[in-house]
């Protein structure tokens, strides 16, 4: 039998893989990919808790729809920023962009 803990554990694994990606990727595009993993982990949690704890309501699913929407907007802007920066500096590597350094 699959309990709630299984789904939450799955989403935790996905989250930590995303976190690992965020912490280690040089490439801005792969950085964004890692962020998508984290967002999906969150979504799994939302839907799973909705299903197990309050099966009659649709709140978790609705919020996960919002998350998908926001994620779409974030990727659009993030990717276009990367492309824009690439045009300026011919690079998408985060450690090339340390303009905020003292």
């Amino acid at each position: 039998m699959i309990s709630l803990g299984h789904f939450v554990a799955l989403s935790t694994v996905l989250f930590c893989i995303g976190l690992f990606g965020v912490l280690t990727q040089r490439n801005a595009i792969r950085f964004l990919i890692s962020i998508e993993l984290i967002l999906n982990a969150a979504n799994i949690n939302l839907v799973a808790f909705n299903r197990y704890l309050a099966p009659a309501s649709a709140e978790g699913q609705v919020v996960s729809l919002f998350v998908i929407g926001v994620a779409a907007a974030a990727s659009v802007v993030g990717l276009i920023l990367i492309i824009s920066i690439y045009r300026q500096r011919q690079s998408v590597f985060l450690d090339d962009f340390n303009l905020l350094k003292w």
Partner: protein
Amino acid sequence: MVNIAHFIPLFPFAAFWLNIIFGRRLGVASAYVAVGASAISAVLAWLVFQGLLSGGGSYTLTPWLTVNGHPITLGIIVDSLTVMMLLVVTVVGTLIQIYSIGYMGGDPRFSRYFAYISLFMSSMLGLVLVDNLFLLYICWEGVGLCSCLLVAFWYEKPAAAAAGIKAFITTRVGDTGLFLGILLLMSVGHSLRFSDMGVINAPEPLMALAALLIFMGAVGKSAQFPLHVWLPDAMEGPTAVSALIHAATMVAAGVYLVARCYPLFTAHPLALQTVAVIGAISAVMAASIACFANDIKKVLAYSTISQLGLMMLGLGAGGYTGGTFHLMTHAFFKALLFLGAGSVIHAVHTQDIRAMGGLFNKMKVTSLTFIIGALALAGVAPLSGFWSKDEILTAVWHHGNFGLFIAAVTTSFLTAFYMTRLILLAFFGEYRGAHKAHESPAVMTLPLVILAFFALFLGLIGSPWAHHAFQRFIAPAEGEVALDIGMAVASSVIALAGILTAFLLRGKFLEYKPGACPLIENKYYFDEIYDALFVRPFHWLAAAVARFDRERVDGVVNGISRCVQEIAQASRSLQTGLVENYLVAQAGGVFVLIVVLTLVGKLCHIF
């Protein structure tokens, strides 16, 4: 017609605002505004005088403040003393302003000058009109401010700026005393009205102290010993200002204050005695300095101190009429002398009398009027100064203190001597100057002629031929007055002796080499003593405080800022600008947060 008195200061006050706001646009017309305003005030003063003769008196405009349950009213005092002062201030003021049109012509701050003069006129008129010490103090500071502004009028000259500061600070010493006296009167006497001065019921030593403190204000304003040092320096201002403020009116305010609070002084003999002694010291000391001064304005300045001292001496010796009479006559002839000196300076462009000489033939009007003024000052009968000085000498004689009488006589003698010396050096002999001298324009000589007229004849209103009209007007309670023939003869002899001595010594004046009389030539070292006693220690104190501020206070402040800088410098290296580093920190932080929250949740479960 007495109830229009409070309008008198308002016209010059309006003129001040007109000139200060529209002065640039008015140009030369600002002089006409100022002269017109004070002429109107003069007419009003005359109307008030007539009103007083036909039985008017003081009146109250409106209650103003209540201090501890004791009211301070906005009141106007109209009596003989006030009316005398009103007439003197408005007439002399108007004449001097007319003179200033010529004297200040072409000055870049022409309208500013007339604005200040108007402000001064309104403050001075207010000073003599108000009926309590509180309002008087306000006007008192007003005239002090104008004095400072006008002494430092040519503030491009460092000496003028310094003199303005010196005048302000020195009089401030006296004003502090006056202020304390007012507070003391208010707290123990419960009234600041002049009409209550004689009847205040309060502990004796405190009231005597109040009288002395008020006299301290008078000492500062009237440049009496030991606060006289500012007046000679104040000669850096325009000569017309010296004539109006530092000879005729403002410096007389101290004498006016003593006369105004006279009941307070007569009730406390110690205070009155102090007035007499201070007056005597100032009179003799300043007169002796004047004998050695070579700057025409300085001679007149010391003469002013000396004559004010004589007035104080007269008041202190119980000669109320003598003191006030001399105040009036002195205002006219000293204004005349200053204006004459201004005319001379205008012509020869120097103030050193050793560089003048022989001006009599070149500037007839100026010379003649100047000589009239000098004779009046010297006390030659029957010019105005004779009658008033004679009155003072009589009072001092009757007072009975022989030392004071000697002081008064010495002052008279020295006065005659130094004025004669001045005239001999400036107007007779060979012309020793380089600049071509010429007579001044009519706008300057006309006031001279009018003032000379006053200097000649004004004294007669106090003479037996006018049945002592002045004495009966100013002090009706003193009863019958009569001229002391013996004293009149004596004072004439003293004056003539002074003049004669000067004539005998006239050949020596130019040959005189400085150094024979170092004490007097250096003005009794007052400036040096004050410099050593007050100015230098104050500078040291200021320097010490500044050093403390710079090294200790600033050290703390700078230390704090340096600390912040160091910390910032150290933490700056954390800002690598690499997003990955920030993210690690963030993730680590989140991790710690999760752990803490979990543990706290666990603990909450347990308890």
